[in-house]
C-alpha cells in the first residue's frame, strides 16, 4: 500500500511504488484534470505541484511522492486569480493542455508576482499547446499577476 496526500486528502492506493505518479492520480484516484501528453516531460500536460513546486507527474514515481504535498488542478480554488484570468481571457480552445498550463502559471506567480515577458516565456516554454493559445496564456498570466499583487 502506498499513501499519498493529494489536495490535502490522504489516499491509500494498492499500487507498486514504481508506477508514475501521473497514472496513479488519473487512473487510480480518478483526478483526471491532470493529463497525459508525452510521458517524457516534454509537454507539461501532467504538471502538478509537489510541495508547492511545479513538477511533471509523468517523471515522478508514486513511491517518491509519499510524504509530500501534492496539488492537482482540482486542488486550485475556483476563485484563484489564475483560474479567473484564464476564464476572463478566454484562453482554452480544445482545453486539454490547460490544466498543466494553469498549474505551471500558478507556480510561477507564487514565486514571482511580477514576471517579465522573458520570465513568463522561459517558465511556460515547457508546456505545449497544439491549439496555439500561447498569446492568450501570456495575457492571462499578466492579468492574474495584477490580481496576485493586490
Amino acid at each position: 500500500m502506498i499513501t499519498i496526500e493529494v489536495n490535502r486528502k490522504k489516499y491509500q492506493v494498492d499500487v507498486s511504488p514504481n508506477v508514475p505518479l501521473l497514472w496513479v492520480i488519473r487512473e487510480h484516484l480518478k483526478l483526471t484534470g491532470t493529463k497525459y501528453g508525452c510521458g517524457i516531460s516534454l509537454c507539461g500536460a501532467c504538471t502538478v505541484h509537489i510541495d508547492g513546486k511545479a513538477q511533471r507527474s509523468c517523471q515522478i514515481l508514486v513511491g517518491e511522492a509519499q510524504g509530500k504535498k501534492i496539488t492537482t488542478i482540482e486542488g486550485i480554488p475556483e476563485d484563484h486569480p489564475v483560474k479567473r484570468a484564464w476564464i476572463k481571457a478566454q484562453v482554452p480552445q480544445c482545453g486539454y493542455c490547460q490544466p498543466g498550463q494553469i498549474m505551471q502559471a500558478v507556480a510561477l506567480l507564487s514565486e514571482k508576482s511580477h514576471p517579465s515577458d522573458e520570465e513568463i516565456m522561459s517558465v511556460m516554454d515547457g508546456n505545449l499547446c497544439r491549439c496555439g493559445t500561447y498569446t492568450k496564456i501570456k495575457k492571462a498570466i499578466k492579468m492574474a499577476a495584477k490580481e496576485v499583487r493586490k
Partner: protein
Amino acid sequence: MSRQLTRREFLRLAGLTVAISLAPSGYRLLSAEEIAKDKSFSPNVWLQITPDNIVTIVVNKSEMGQGVYTSLPMIVADELDADWKQVRFEVAPAGERYIDPLSGMESTGGSTSVRHMFEPLRKAGAAAREMLVSAAAKKWGVPANECKASNGMVIHKKSNRKLTFGQLSERASSLPVPQNPSLKNERHFKFIGKPLDRLDTTEKVNGSAVFGIDVFVPNMLYASIERPPLYGAQALSYDKEAALKIAGVKHVIDVQSLSYGYRGKAVCAETIEGAWKGRNALNVKWDRGSHPELNNESLHTTLIEHLKKDGVVARNDGDVKLALKKASKKVEATYTLPYLYHSTMEPMNCTAHVSPSGCDIWVPTQNQTGVLQVASKITGLKPDQINVHTTYLGGGFGRRFETDVVQEAVQLSKETGRPIKLIWSREEDVKNDLYRPANSCKIEGGIDEKDLLVVWSHKVVVPSIFSRVFPQMMKNGIDPAAVEGIANMEYEIPNVYVEYVRLDMPVPVGFWRSVGSTHNAFTVECFIDELAHAANKDPLEFRLSLLKNHKRAYKVLEVAAEKAGWKKPLEKGQGRGIAQHLSFGSYVAQVAEVSVDEKIGIIKAHRVVCAVDCGDVINPAIITAQMQSGIIMGLSAALKEGIELKKGGVATSNFNNYELLRMHEAPEIEVHIVRSREKLGGIGEPGVPPIAPAVANAIFAATGKRIRRLPINAEELKKT
C-alpha cells in the same frame, strides 16, 4: 454543463421541444408529440425550453477547440430571442437523427459546422419563438402581432404584461410547429456577430471537462497494444506466457482491424500499469517489414522521379506550351514537403463495452457515423443498439475522423466480454498516424515583355487521401485534395496547366487541418512571389494585379498589407512576406515579419498580421482564436515539423524528435475580420495555409534565399 442525453430522456423532460427532420424537399419542424408518435422520421436538431427557464440546445458537432458548443447555440438563441445566461448545450448522441443535412453524415470536418447548421438552427429557433409568442397571445387574448419575444420573455407592451419562456413552455408545446417561421432581419441579431464568451471555458479551466481519456466504466480492463514497428512487419516470436504472468494481465490478443490492417498484440489487464508491464513482457521480435529500403532519402528520390511521370490533367486553360515558349522570362522551381503528424495533445483513445445486446462507445471522435458503422460491422449489432458517447476532443485536426482506435477497442471488448479502455502512448500516436501527405511540385511560369504573368504550369506529386476515405469523390482519377488551391487558384492567368501524379506509398495519409491547402498554398504562394521578383514587381502589387476581378481575395490582401504597414522599412536582417489563400469558403491573407540571424542560423517570426473574410460573422472572438490557432500550427509545421522515415517505418517517436512550436517562438498575431456579408465560409482550417508561404517569402525578403523545402532549415540560411 455538458452531458449526453438519450432520446427518451429528452422527451421525458417537460416543456417545449422542437426538432427538425430531414426530408429531400427540405426541413420539417416537429414537436415533441410528433416525435414520440412518429418513429420513422429523423429529426436532427433539438431545442428544448423547460419550465425552469433553461434553454437547451443539442449540438451534433464535435468540440475540438473550434467552439461549436458556443457558436451553434448562439445561432438558435438569437432567433429565439433567448436570455444567453439561460442557454445550455447538450452533446448529441450518434444516429441518423443527428446527421448533418448537407454532408449526410454525423461528423465534424472541412470547416463546415456553422456553414451547414446555420439555416436549420435558425429555423428551429425561430419556430420556437413563434410558438412561445402564440402561446402568450392566446393566454392574454391579444393578437400575436402585438406580442414580442425578448431576452427570454414574451412581452405585451400595450398591457405591460410579461411571461418567461419557462412559464410559456408547456402551453407552447401543444401548438403546431410553424413550418416556415420568419427569420430575423440580420440587423436585429443580438448574439450573432458578437464576441460572446464560450460556454465550455469554465470546465476546461477547472479540469472537469471529460475528454475520452478521462472515461471510466465499471469492471473495465485497460488495453495496450504492441504494434508492428515497421510497415508490414510480422511477429517472428513473442512470449505470451511471460505477459500473462504479470499481475492483473488477463488476455493477450492479436488485433486485426477492419480497415487499417494488422494492429499488433494487445495486452488487457486490470490496471493500466499491468497492461504496460505485460506488453513489455511480450518481448515481440519483428521481421524487417514490407519496405525495408524506405527512408527519407528514398522518399525524396521517389517524389522527384514521379515528377517526370505523366499524371492526370486537372486544369488546362489556353496553350501552356506555346505560352512558355513565347514568354520573355521563365521561372522554374521544385518544392518538396514532408509527411506531417497531427499531434493532438490527447493521444488516441477509446473506451468500448460490447455485450450481446448492445454496445457503448466513449470516444473523442470527429466521425460518429463512421464509429457507428465500424462498431456495427465488428459486433454484428444494429446501429440502434450502439450508443456513441462523444466526449471532448483534446485536439482533432482531422486525425479523429479516423476510426482505427475504435475498431481496436471494440474488437477487444467483444473478445474479452469486458469494457475496454484503450489508451495509445505518445510513441504509438506518432508512429501510427495517417499523416499529411509528403509531396513535391514542379512549377513553371512565364512573364511577357510587359512583365505580365501569362502562363502557369504546375505538376504535383502527392499520395491520395480521398481514394481511401471517400473513393466516391475521386473524379477521373483526381483526388480533390491533391489539387485543391492549385486548380482553383484565384489568380487570373490566361494559360494554366495543372497535372496530378498520384504516388502510392506504404505510409498511410489522412486529413490534416486544411488538407491539400496545407501544401498547395505553400507552393502556389511561394511561386507567385518568385514570379513577382522576376517581373521586378512588389509582391503585393503583383498579386493584386492578378486579382482585379476577385474582390474578396483582393480585399484581404489589401487589409493585411495596410495593417501590417507593408511598405514600412524594417531593421537589417528582417523581412516581410505576404500570402493569401482561399480554402473552405474563406479568404485569408497574412503578412509575416521575420528576423533571420544568418550568422548562427536562427529564424524568428515575430509578428503576423492576418485578414480574414469568412462572410457572415457568428462569433468574432472565436474567429480570431481560430486564426491565431491556424497560424501557430502552420508556423510550427513550416519551421519544425516533419516525419522521419527509416528502415521502412517511422523513426520519429515523441516530442523530442517531433518538435512543436513553443511559447517563445510564437509571434504576436493581429487578426482583422473583413465583414463582407458574403456567403458563410469555414473558420477552423483557413488560418493554416497562408502562414508557411508568408514566412518563406519574408525570409527571401530578408536574405535573398528562396525556401523550396519544408521544414525550413535555418542551418542552410547561414552565411558561409
